[in-house]
């Protein structure tokens, strides 16, 4: 189980993004190592993008573009114009993209719906947490609603007039979604749910676990250390 709260992970993402934007060269490499270590230790699911071919194609594009880029001569597509400075430029671009992606995926993949709803509750945004819960629960039903609507239109021969069918499909889908919403409103009213209330006093106080404080200190210290690294 992770020792950090949602705020800890969000802090990590913010730290990663800010440092990526101000770093370059070896600093970027060091930042990448730190992000990877954090991911391996506390957010293995966040390293999933590294297993995707599409992600590496994206990184390789930046890497491959660099050698053809010479700051003086511009973009030259003949192999003879490969330059060392262009190569390091490509590495810098690829490293930056990799670091930014890791900062996001490692920090945010640890979040769950209940974490977010609890966070909104504490921030006195109870309604937003409620709306997010409604949306999450609706996702599966929506696909079923869309399939049923489409099949009904198809079986009644509605697809012969595509534009009318599209209009019918959209009106039916949105109407059914709003009717589903009426049921949720009734259920919330029966339970006396009030999105504008602060919740229980215990929930509304913002707690700061020790692990988060330790993480904050570690992030600040490593950030300062990274920025102090001399660039070759």
């Amino acid at each position, binding site marked *: 189980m992770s020792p950090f709260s949602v705020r800890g992970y969000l802090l990590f993402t913010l730290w990663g993004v800010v440092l990526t934007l101000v770093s370059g060269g070896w600093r970027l490499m060091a930042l990448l190592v730190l992000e990877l270590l954090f991911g391996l230790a506390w957010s293995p699911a966040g390293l999933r993008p590294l297993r995707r071919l599409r992600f590496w194609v994206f990184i390789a594009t930046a890497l491959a573009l660099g050698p053809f880029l010479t700051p003086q001569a511009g973009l030259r597509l003949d192999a003879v114009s490969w330059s060392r400075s262009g190569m390091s430029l490509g590495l810098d*671009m690829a490293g930056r993209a990799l670091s930014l992606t890791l900062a996001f995926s490692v920090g*945010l993949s640890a979040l769950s719906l209940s974490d977010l709803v609890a966070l909104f509750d504490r921030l006195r945004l109870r309604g937003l947490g409620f709306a997010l819960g*409604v949306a999450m629960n609706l996702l599966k039903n929506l696909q079923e609603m869309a399939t049923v609507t489409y099949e009904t239109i198809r079986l009644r021969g509605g697809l012969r007039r595509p534009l009318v069918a599209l209009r019918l499909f959209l009106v039916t889908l949105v109407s059914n979604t709003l009717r589903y919403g009426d049921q949720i409103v009734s259920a919330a009213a029966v339970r006396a749910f009030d999105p504008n209330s602060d919740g229980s006093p215990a929930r509304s106080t913002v707690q700061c676990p020790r692990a988060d404080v330790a993480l904050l200190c570690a992030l600040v210290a490593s950030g300062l250390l990274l920025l102090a690294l001399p660039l070759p």
Partner: protein
Amino acid sequence: MLSYRVRDWVTIGLFGALWGVVETTLGSYLNVIFPAFTNTFFKGVILAGIGVAVALTGRFFVPRRGSLLLIGTVTALLKLLSPAGGKIGPVVAIGMQSVMMEAAASMARDPRRWTFVLGGALAVAWNFPHKFLMMGLMYGRNVAEVYWMLVEDGSRMLGLDRSVALLIVAALLGVRLIVGGISGWSAWALGGAVAHRLGRRSQAVTE
């Protein structure tokens, strides 16, 4: 947001989910048709056009300030929580599109068709600077130089004047504005049709 009732929050959740489904389901299909490393023009225009229409239809039923921002927030959070990768770009795009729509929709006190059309056009047109912003953010300032060199080299290779290249860029922006405007118009029409079917009368319907 204190003035929002339970029904408003539920409707925001519903339309956030609808936009989220468009982003996740249709987005995945379009990723197969147009792979990530090919031109993303069609993918972006199709996704943004439909997403913007859904969000603006939501505004029709929650005609309160900030509702489009909240619908966008719910969609962005759904995208963040989805198991698919490549999240930074879409999340920033959804956020910026909802800001654009909200800015346009807030120009009039009550919902009006022209605010929907303007909001839709601005939101879909955001796709254009979005690409440059994200590339700049991901790859650094150097990518702007790369883009400029590509335009210069491309126009030289094809024997075109540089101004023609800029004309093509302007045409791409124009197409986005038109598609967005149609999305906004459609959202207004769809909202009216659904309200009529459900027997609801919102501020928008009484116009």
